[in-house]
Structures are given as C-alpha cells and as structure tokens.
C-alpha cells in the first residue's frame, strides 16, 4: 500500500513538473489515466482465461472422481461443461461471452456466474464495507489524536493498541472473539451467534431479518475493523506528524489561533491527503472479501466463493470473480489518481 502511494506521489509530481498548458494538460492527464486503466482491463480479460488453465488440476477429473465410472459418463460431463472444444475455440467463446456481459455457467453450481457473484456480493459488502468504513473513521481519528499528543500516554496507548491488533492474524482474533462472545467464557455469557449471515427462519429483507443479520455480523465486523484500524491510524499519525513541523502552523499559531483550530483547519486537512489515497485504493479491495474471516464466521461471501472455486478449478467462476475484483481495483486506482490531482493544489495539472 505504501509503495503504491509513493509511486502515485512520484507520478503526480512528474506530472506537476511539466510546464505544459494547463487545460490541455489536465485533459491529457485524465485521458491518459483512463486509457491506461482500459488497457489494464483488456490485459486482465485475456490473462484471466489463461491464468486459471495453468492450474494442474483437470476440472472434469475432480468432478467425476469416485462418481462417474464409464468413459461415456465422463464424455457427457466434458461436453456439458464445454471442455470438449479446443482451447482457441473456448477462448473465443469466453471473449464473446465476456464482452456481451456473460460469464458462463459455474462448473460446480451450474448457475450463471453473474448471479452467483451477485448472491455472494452483498454479504461481502456488508461485512468488509462496514468494517472498512468503521476502520477509516476510527483510524483517522485515532491517528489524529495520537499525532497531536505525540509522546503522551494517549499516543502510546492508541499506537500500541493498533499495532498489536495489526500484528495479529485476523482469523485468530476472530476465533478468540468467537470463543469468548459466541460461546461464552467464564462470567461472559453467550452474546452472539457462532456464524452465518442470518438465522434460518427469518426473511433477510424484513426489518426483523435486518436486525438478525446485524446481530450475526457484529463479531465479524468488529474483528475486521480492529484488524484494519492500524493501517489508517498509523498513516494518519505519521502524515500529521510531518505536517506538524511545517512553518505554516507556526504562522497560524502566531496569528493567535486556538490549538484545536490549528489542528482542524490547517494541519489535518493537509495530512489527510495520503490517507485519502489509501482509503480510495482500499475501496477497490472491499469486493474481494476477507477469506479468513468469512471462513471463521461462515459468511458466504466472495472470498469464500473464490477459494472454493479454486479447488475444482471452476474456470467460469474464477474468471468472473477475478475480472470483477480487477475492475474494482482498476477503478479505485483511477479514481485515486484523478482525486489526487484535485485535492492537492501543489499538483498542478
């Protein structure tokens, strides 16, 4: 993440150093970025097809083992899956499908891949999206407080706290929470369910169902929020610390502004830049899910779908999910590239 941020900064700076005419420069910049993203997308589409076919497992053999005895049965299955066609032919079908917005049928679930991804998307969005938002807000606040009180107890506490959580594997943190709050330990009663997205007997779209889902998601969301927290708080802390040595803050103080005001109006605003980049880039990763947490809390999200598909390997699902993840990341990169130019007045476009 930090590496990405710094390349981004470097790029932005080189762009800024070019003394071209402003207007056309801006459009050239935007056009260039959009074109670049489009290129990346095209590459992903082609690469996707071959990437998963490199896996040494044969989906037909995986699906047929211990079940389909005769050659005829295996042939029927191969034909059903469309794997009897030559590789170039399959590639062509894949391209046609992809560009007409279809991703084919899953080998394992025999359902349209688009539908499966949509089914699995909302648990992931609820889980990872909520956690990311919470971690961003809390993390930025923590980082800000730490930096402003550098060296004081608050700083030590909050930095130590976020670093500890950052260094823990999230699945382990999840297991601990599960054992303590979903099973009950000592004086702590059982407070939350052990897993799943909602109870079996509620309609998830109803109000009660919504509450039930929130209840089920509490532990996993807390786990992920805690795990993600440090990333934001540390970046925010260090960038605010960088700003704190700047002359303009001395100027602001010399003008007689109150400390809180200096922090809020001057220091924080400038310190938010790297954090913004991080947040926008991370938005792209939300959809790829959190495989370990989805496993521990049995949440049927996109991360799990992908790992399960790898076992077969279920080419259409893998192609679909990876294309989807790639689009999200490429879009997030594009947005952060463009945003950076807008937010930082020093980057002249």
């Amino acid at each position, binding site marked *: 993440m930090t590496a990405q941020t710094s390349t981004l900064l470097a790029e932005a700076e080189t762009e800024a150093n070019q003394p071209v005419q402003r207007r056309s420069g801006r459009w050239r910049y935007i056009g260039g970025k959009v074109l670049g993203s489009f290129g990346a997308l095209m590459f992903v589409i082609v690469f996707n097809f071959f990437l998963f076919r490199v*896996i*040494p497992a044969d989906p037909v053999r995986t699906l047929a083992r211990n*079940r*389909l*005895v*005769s*050659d*005829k*049965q*295996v042939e*029927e*299955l191969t034909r*059903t899956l469309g794997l009897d066609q030559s590789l170039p032919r399959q590639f062509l079908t894949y391209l046609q499908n992809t560009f007409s917005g279809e991703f084919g*049928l899953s080998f*394992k*679930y*025999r*359902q349209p891949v688009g539908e*499966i991804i949509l*089914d*699995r998307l909302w648990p992931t969005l609820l889980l990872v999206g909520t956690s990311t938002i919470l971690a961003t807000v809390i993390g930025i606040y923590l980082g800000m407080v730490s930096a402003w009180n550098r*060296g004081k107890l608050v*700083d*030590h*506490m909050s*930095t*130590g*706290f976020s*670093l*500890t959580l*950052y*260094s823990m594997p999230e699945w*382990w943190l999840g*297991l601990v929470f*599960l*054992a*303590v709050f*979903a*099973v*009950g*330990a*000592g*004086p*702590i*009663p*059982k407070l939350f*369910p*052990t*897993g*799943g*997205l909602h109870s*079996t*007997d509620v309609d998830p779209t109803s109000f009660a169902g919504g509450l039930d889902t929130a209840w089920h998601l509490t532990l996993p969301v807390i786990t992920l929020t805690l795990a993600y927290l440090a990333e934001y708080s540390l970046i925010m802390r260090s960038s605010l*610390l960088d700003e704190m040595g700047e002359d303009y803050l001395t100027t602001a103080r010399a003008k007689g502004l109150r400390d809180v005001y200096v922090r809020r109006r001057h220091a924080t605003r400038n310190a938010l830049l790297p954090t913004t980049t991080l947040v926008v880039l991370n938005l792209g990763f939300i959809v790829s899910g959190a495989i370990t947490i*989805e*496993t521990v*809390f*049995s*949440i*049927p999200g996109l991360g799990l779908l992908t790992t399960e598909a790898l076992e077969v390997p279920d080419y259409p699902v893998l192609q679909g999910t990876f294309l989807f993840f790639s689009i999200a990341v490429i879009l997030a990169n594009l947005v952060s590239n463009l945003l950076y130019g807008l937010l930082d007045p020093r980057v002249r476009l």
Partner: protein
Amino acid sequence: MVSDRVKRATGGVAAGVLGLTMSWIGVSAPQAASADDPVVFTVGMTNEVDSFNPFLGIEAESFEMWALMYDQLITYSPKDMSPQPGLASDWETSDDGLTWTFTIRDDVKWSDGKPLTSADVAFTLNRILDGGPEAATWGSYLTSVDSITAPDPTTVVMKLSKPNAVLPLLPMPIVPEHIWKNISEEEVKSYANEGEVVGSGPFRYVSGTAGGSTYKFKVNPDYWGPQPKIDEIDYVVYQADDPMVQALKTGEIDFAEDVPPLQLKAIEGEDGIKTVTGASPSFAEIAFNTGSVDVDTGEPIGDPNPAVMDPKFRYALGFAIDRDLLIERAYQGGGEPGDTIIPPAYSQYHYDAPADLKWSYDPDRAAQLLDEAGYKMGDDGKRTMPDGSPIGTLRLLARSESPESLHTMDYFQEWLADLGIDSEVTAMESGKLTNVILDGDFDAFQWGWYVEPDPDSMLSYMTCGQRGNWSDSWYCNPAYDKLYEQQHAELDDAKRAEEVKQMQAILYQDAPYLVTAYDSIGEAYRCDRFEGFVPQPNPGGILLFQYGVRSYEEMYPVTHCGEGQADESASASDGGGLGTGAIVGVGVAALAAVGAVGGILLHRRSTADERE
C-alpha cells in the same frame, strides 16, 4: 516503515497468546433448551449443497437433499446397504436376466396432489438413458439397458441386451414427468430446481439456494412411508469445523456432521452431547506403479522403478506397514486398519484373507519375503535388485492437502528404510498428482476411494480397460478382468459374492494397492434433544448422510440424554469452563503488555527519528 519493525518485535508475544487461546477452545456452554412446537432439527455441516437438481450436483450434501425431496425406486437397507423396496414394492427378473419388471406403489402422491405413477419412473429413467447431463450423473446404473416402458400405472419393464448384476440397484431420484417434461436437455444443464419444487419424499424443500449457507425442509404430511417424528429440518453450513463444534455446544445446532477426530475427542463426554465415530465405506491406500503404458500403443511410459513392478516385492511390503500405528498417529483414531478394496461395511462382499496370507505388522516376515524374492541385503546395508544392481530411491508421493496422506508416506519411508530400501517423499496437490500418475512418473502414492454399495464400480477401477482413465496403479491382470466380466453378469447373489471375493484375493497377492485404513466419519449430536438415529451399517455406522433417509424417519425428540434407551449411564463431565476466566484474564493481560511494549518501542523510535 516504523510499523514493520515493531510488528516483528510484537510477533513473538502474539504467537504466545495464540498458543494459549488454541488450548482453550473447548469451553463448556450454557444450554438452551427449547421444546417449541414445531420440532425443528438443526444440522450443521461444513460443505454446501452444489445443486438441488438431482441430475447435476455431486456433493454428498446434495445427495442427502434429493433423498429427502424425492423417492428412489430401490433404497438401501440400514444394515448392510443391500437393495430394499422403495417406490418399487416388488421386482422380478426373467431367467435370462434380460427383462426386469418392477411393481410401483399405487399410494404415492406428488406434493402438488397429482399421483405418482410408473409413467414418472419410466420418464426419469428414459431421460437418463437418452444421454446428456442426466446420463453423466446416473448413466452407469443403466448399463446395457435397451428400453424402459410403463405398460400400466403400477408396472415398469426394463429390457437389457446383457445381464447386469448391479440391478436392481437404482438410486436415482424419481422426478415428476409433468414438471420436468417442460425442461429441455439444454435447460437441465443450468436448472436450479429451487423455489416451487414438486417432490414425493418424506420432506419437502422450503428454501435455500445451491452454494448458500442455510437450507430448510418441512415434513411431507402425505408421505407414503413411516411419518417422521420431526417437523422441520434446518441445515446450516459452517465454513470451518471449529465454529460448528462450538455451535453444537451452545445448542445452536442439534447435529454436527463430519467432525474431525481431534475435535470429536475434545467434546467427548460433554453434558448433553453424544459423539459417534461411524464406519464410512471408503478406504485409503498406498498404490504402486505396476507398469504404466501408453494405452493406445501398449508401449511403456513413465519411469516406474522395476522393483515396484514386481508383485512379490509389493506383497512383501504389506508386512512392513504398521496399520495400527497409522490409525493412531496419522488418523488420530478416526479409522480402522484396512486390507482390501471392499470395506467390511459391505459384509457380503468383503474378502477376509486367510491367516497365512494376511498382512500384519511383521518386518521380519517382510524382510524374509524380500530375501526370497531376490531382493537381498547388500554389503552397504541396502537391498539390491535380484540381478545385484541397486534399487535406487523410490519416489513416494503424498497429497499436500491431506495431513493423513503426508503422515502415512512419512511412516512408510521409515519402514522402507528399516528394510534397507531408500525412498523420498514428495507432497503435491492432488490435481498435479493426477497428472503425474497418468504420466507414470512415480513409484508409489497415497490416496483413497469411496466405495459404493455395489462393488462393481470399485472393482472396475482395477481392470486393464481403466488404465489411462480411472486406474491409478496401472494394474492389469487378464484373470482379474475375466472375473470382473463374470460377476458383472452374474445373477445369483451368492455366486457373485464369491467371485467378488476371488477378485479381492487376486488383488491381495498382486498388491497393486496396500490398503492401509478404512476411514470413519465423526458425528456428534445433542442427546438431550434428539435420539433414535439408525446407524448405517448397523452396528458401527454413521447416523446421517447415509444411503437413504431412514434416520430422519426414525429419530425422535427427547428432553434429556438417555431418554427412551435402556442402559445409558449419565456421563459426568464438567470443568471444561474451569479456568477459562483465568485464561481470558491472562490473554487480556498479555494483550495489554504487548500494547505497552509496542507503544514504548514506537515512542523510542519516533523520538530518536524526529529529534535529529
């Protein structure tokens, strides 16, 4: 940048805390008793249903759902899985074995009220006979069947071109013609069979989607068979064993399917929980490359070691394997020592080797047999080929995703070393292993098979014709193949069983496989809520996910453990929760300590860095 360095410093402490927690997952739980109306039976499992369409899915979970939703023509007895009446109340065969006549029950209704007749049966079977995805799944049961007709509403007639001993076993779910005739062969490929499902089985599908995490079923009040004593079944998918076991302890679920041996031990004797280790009809083996060939030309391919191509060498190694130790160490007690490819669960077909041939852990006998076969010990303490050349290093392959596989091969390597034979173990993912096997570039590998109630398919994997397809040992023996053809057409059950045993006797001495273990499946349930499950095979079998749905029909709700059973001594167990509070306390303290250390480290760093 700072974070990276501190992360390393805190890592060790975090690992310590991790160790603590792992040891404490195993806490006793409060017990929520619910005696609501209706009676809901909640089953936890660790794998999803992959399709509710009985022509598409492959997972055991899917087969379980279909068996609840639909009826089968013939089902399996709980005792030994032999065929017993289902929708077909009776059947008979002509003397030449070419005509089978099934009598269909006349009191069966579909859930939409329409009667189930022989036309539905013939429709389903013909659909499979016609090819397509349906045939891919169920075609092997209709080998050499020419036609299936329904001359009247209660009769189905099947004509064959050759006798087929696998009949009358017909485990495919029978689907309603009036629904499925509107689904074309192209549509079947992606037909989900969810929403409004018309079935005839003991339970009715209510909700759930393939790949989803919950499935709901309600009892069928019009079911023709014994009326179940439970009203609803909820299935909940857990993505890891641990949370599932925890859920059983808290009472969120009543039954946990496929619990690993270690987890099972951890909850053994807990209040209100009963654990079962049931025989599963599957085995694990060490297989050899008995001679890989190009199937088309018959030319040898790959590079098997000449030693493993010798049946005498392989048979001798059968005495080098300590199967009891494998069960204890590699399987954590979750299995039984094994020796032939038809597990003893199928008692009528299982071959028991005579005492003088039977493998046991006897390294001296193994050494003696190797000596007799010419594999003499050389001066360097290594055995040589009969011609005096070195054997070289045997390549043993294990499946990286299976700890049992790795452990088995590690032990095997040690036992080989004791006999003066060098070997090396390589682990690889099973997809890759399949390719290596097909290329013949191996000497031995570890894997296993699941064996169906009819031994025919398992026996076929060892025939010459399966080389390059399902055969993984490249075994080929014309005498074995002849017996295979013979048993496949044998209509006399006793004679067929004899032939099946003879085939296993051949395999025993040729030893393409050294069967090491018969797997078992761990199950646990709340005995304070439900009892009366019927094991399959009986005794010693699993309670759910069987062939057939007898357990669901027989089980009943109870209010405390041991109810309705003769001699059930209450198991005393407590203290699981003891000390948990203390450990949590330690954990919290450790966290705080780590936090403080991290804070101080960071403080040092930052002051040093920034006050330059």
